[in-house]
């Protein structure tokens, strides 16, 4: 169980995340949705210790992220698919990630095969398309064979085959008992495989409920329409 409790984060006078609380259960896929600037990425960064919350806690099975003995074996994270050195090959990118997590180097070839990048393994990341970078980022998240996957817009740049592969991979992951927390703007796609939704706007929780409950709000409308209505008051775009 992942517990997010009363998270708040401000940058200067701007409150980016405001008293956010929700839980993520094992064996389920939770979609994290909201307009741009709603605080989704900041929330995810706080969950994995990259940003320090002003108040609130995040626990993974009762421990915060920094206390996990082997974070990579517990939580696989994709926050930014562009976060790669362009001069490094895909294989060396993953080798460096495996090394810092004390993971066997054999996992590198395994995950490269899993994401379909085995033939591009020794090519420099600088020549990769966005979709290939997304696959490589997901490969990095899978290196530790984690119990939890946290993905910030993993479908960006993926072609239809890639999106289908991602959906199947995440569904299988959850069926095996893993926890998936995925933010996405592809609402129609999310509707086909998510079990639960956490909807945020202006940094605040709008709703956290099973997907079915969200759809039950108005069965005559699509999930996308329902979510746009839920978040319409919160869709204000300001520069950081």
């Amino acid at each position, binding site marked *: 169980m992942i517990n997010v409790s009363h998270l708040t984060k401000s940058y200067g006078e701007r409150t980016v995340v405001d008293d956010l609380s929700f839980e993520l259960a094992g064996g389920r896929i939770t979609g994290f949705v909201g307009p741009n600037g709603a605080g989704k990425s900041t929330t995810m960064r706080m969950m994995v210790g990259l940003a320090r919350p002003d108040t609130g806690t995040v626990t993974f*099975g009762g421990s915060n992220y920094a206390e996990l003995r082997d974070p990579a074996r517990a939580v696989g994270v994709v926050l930014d698919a562009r*976060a790669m*050195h362009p001069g490094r090959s895909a294989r060396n990118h993953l080798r460096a990630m495996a090394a810092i997590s*004390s993971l066997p180097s054999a996992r590198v070839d395994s995950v490269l095969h899993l994401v379909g990048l085995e033939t591009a393994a020794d090519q420099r990341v600088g020549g990769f398309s966005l979709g290939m970078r997304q696959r490589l980022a997901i490969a990095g998240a899978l290196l530790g064979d984690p119990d939890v996957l946290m993905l910030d817009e993993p479908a960006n740049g993926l072609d239809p085959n890639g999106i289908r592969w991602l959906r199947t991979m995440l569904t299988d992951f959850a069926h095996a*008992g893993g926890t998936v927390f995925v933010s996405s703007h592809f609402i129609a796609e999310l509707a086909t495989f998510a079990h639960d939704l956490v909807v945020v706007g202006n940094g605040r929780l709008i709703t956290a409920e099973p997907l079915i409950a969200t759809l039950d709000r108005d069965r005559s409308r699509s999930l996308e329409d329902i979510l746009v209505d839920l978040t319409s008051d919160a869709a204000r775009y300001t520069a950081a």
Partner: protein
Amino acid sequence: MNTTTLLRPPSSPSPIGRDLRAAIRSEWIKLGSIRATPIFVGLSIAIGVAMSLILGAIVKTDPYDHLPFTIGNTFLVSSWLTTLFAVVAGTLLFTSEVQHGTLASALTSRPSKPIIIGAKVCIAAVLGFVMGTLGIVGGLSGGLASGMATGDMSGAGSGVGWALVLTTLAPVLGLGVGLIVRHSAAAVTSVLVWALAVENLVRGMAPASVSRLLPFTAANGLLGTRSAADTPETLAAVFSSVGNAAVIGCWAVAAVAIGTALLIRQDS
């Protein structure tokens, strides 16, 4: 997937030694897998060879005492430039991670900034040692190729030792600068401006007792070299080798400490 991983309580904290070794292995892979590394290493050799060749085959005599250059008094001269490049390499060890966003992935894998920085310090020191060694080898090779006389090599052993101390500390200082400035171009520019302009200005304006506390001035003292800005007063005030090494070490430690403190305070 081990579904009990999360449920396993962190009864014993992950050993720091194990984490540091893992982080060092990762940094080593990172260092060895980018094109900039062989470029810096190659530059070290090239500078050593080139400077010795120039001094031995073209300049031939010391402009200050008018004595002919020998291998003994020139093979370490290039180490000052090697030091400068080593500082630049050290800054890039951190700033390139910030620039490409890879620092965040390192921190999610190993959420301990001191461990990550500790690993980078170790790798920076190794890189500096390698660059220094190759620069010295280049200096010797260039000296031999230029046909210079061997000269007095009695101080070569200690000279090499202190030169390697310098080039080992240099990238650590650069890492500290990178931690503080966090932007590749700004950090590299800062280093170059400081080394080539600021310190010369300070040497020209401040008392020798102050200017000898500057890192690149101490580097000159450690190598037994002098710059055009040096005066009899500044040369007389030079610290001993131990003192000069301590000056550079203090700058490196202070820069890394300040940079680490800033990094811990900031979100990644």
